[in-house]
């Protein structure tokens, strides 16, 4: 499967043998245990349950894991540039400008004591020299692009005055303002209502396609990832247990993927007990 992606000249993101570990009082916990993948300008989904290492993978790419966490990898390269070799200062320039991240809950990722507009303008001015009035008009345009109906009002608002769906759109707008090449979205819609979810995903997809960005969507929701992404990595206990074309999820081989698919209740699926997942020790070996 990776052969097809390899036909492209150079992958946007290349991760080889990534390991993330934490030293704790009870010993070393390995959150990610040697995973490799590459990403073109496509939508890649990473699914797994809590503790599978999917969030740590996203954070490791951005080098956002702080001690006592340790990140090791043979290679993490963005467009051929080795991210592990960059100084902290140069890495700061990569964050936001080249790779952006949308987190799960807008309530915790927006600054509560700063107006939305100032946060957006700041995101723009950190990465490029623009006048205040230009930054303002670009910020307003971006709010419009994420389908906020009254951008002027939202520009002046504080985070607590916005609904969850609005907050998440603002986050996406803020992340996309510097025009990154890669967007990492970590459970971007889990805190949102299901009817808002489709809208936010639609906005993200359209932006990604228009700008030719790469997207990594991290989620626990197998159905969502399978229907939204091009390719899916299934993680279990810090490893990638299966890589699939999203459309062929029903052909998944690994018992963990199959178990995850089967244990979801389906509408019209009847009242029989749901099959539960019997975790085999061999999966995490």
């Amino acid at each position, binding site marked *: 499967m990776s052969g097809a992606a390899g036909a492209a000249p150079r992958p946007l993101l290349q991760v080889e043998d990534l390991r993330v570990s934490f030293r704790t009082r009870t010993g070393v916990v390995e959150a990610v245990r040697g995973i490799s993948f590459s990403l073109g300008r496509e939508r890649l989904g990473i699914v797994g349950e809590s503790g599978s290492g999917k969030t740590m993978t996203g954070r490791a790419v951005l080098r956002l894991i702080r001690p006592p966490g340790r990140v090791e990898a043979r290679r993490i390269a963005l467009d051929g540039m080795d991210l592990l070799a960059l100084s902290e200062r140069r890495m700061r320039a990569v964050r936001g400008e080249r790779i952006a991240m949308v987190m799960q809950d807008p309530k915790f990722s927006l600054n509560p004591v700063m107006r939305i507009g100032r946060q957006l303008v700041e995101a723009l001015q950190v990465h490029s020299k623009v006048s205040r009035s230009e930054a303002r008009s670009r910020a307003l345009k971006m709010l419009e692009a994420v389908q906020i*109906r009254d951008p002027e009002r939202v520009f002046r608002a504080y985070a607590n005055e916005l609904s969850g769906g609005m907050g998440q759109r603002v986050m996406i707008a803020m992340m996309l303002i510097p025009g990154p090449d890669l967007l990492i979205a970590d459970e971007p819609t889990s805190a949102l209502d299901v009817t808002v979810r489709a809208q936010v995903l639609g906005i993200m997809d359209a932006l990604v396609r228009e700008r030719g960005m790469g997207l990594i969507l991290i989620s626990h929701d197998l159905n969502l990832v399978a229907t939204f992404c091009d390719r899916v990595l299934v993680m279990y206990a810090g490893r990638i247990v299966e890589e699939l074309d999203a459309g062929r999820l029903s052909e998944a081989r690994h018992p963990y993927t199959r178990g995850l698919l089967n244990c979801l209740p389906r509408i019209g699926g009847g*009242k029989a007990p749901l099959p539960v997942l019997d975790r085999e020790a061999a999966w995490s070996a």
Partner: protein
Amino acid sequence: MQRETVTPPKLEIEDLHVVFGQGTQRVEAVIGVSFALGGNECFGIVGESGSGKSTVLRAICGLMPIRAGRILIDGEPVQAPRGRAFARRVQMVFQDPYASLHPRHTIDRVLSEPLAIHGFADQQERVIQALGDVGLGPAFRFRFPHQLSGGQRQRVAIARALILKPEILLLDEPTSALDASVQAEVLNLLTRIRQEQGLTYVLVSHDLAVIDHMCERLIVMQNGRTLERLDASALAVHDVATDYTRALLQASAGYKWDAASSGAAFAKRPR
């Protein structure tokens, strides 16, 4: 509701209204919701945040002020304040097992407290029995909540609700904080306990698939009102009347590529 008057419904909600605040701050959280369910039934309420679905459950428990309407159990109006007799018959399980268990109380203490309040003598046996009922061994008795996984915590929360042998269990999003595989285990557990102990459930969830799996009948709520009444057979064939319910059905199937979500969405903004 077309039930014979000889056996009144186990739980009946009649034209329930819940209002918070006054003046400009006034919020009508629940507006004229009615439903009735028989013994050993599992009744579902589905809706999104702010639809008033949890408020209905909290109002039944007396945790919310009722502006108008009646709540009847076995045909008898419930007392206000609810009192001990009510707690013996109706118990609630909350959404987040990380928040609903006292972090510094052992599981034993969590489970013994209702027994002490209600003056049971055989506390030990009942605690061990309740843990067994939810599939946790006696080894869990002296652990703290932080030593348990999310699924195990929710089992403890269910054990706490069951320990007084209630007739009605109010379940407020009991699995939405859990992983899919753990959700399956907890849903199976709830189904088994309902059959074994002849319990009556009211299950609240935002996930239509969960409600469909557990319940024969359900209501869809939006903005405090009942939007639609459905039964599982109608849901199975997607025979629903409102666009909103259709959107919920759609959402539970995953993301759908259609005109609204493609690039065209930029040109014409919804609403």
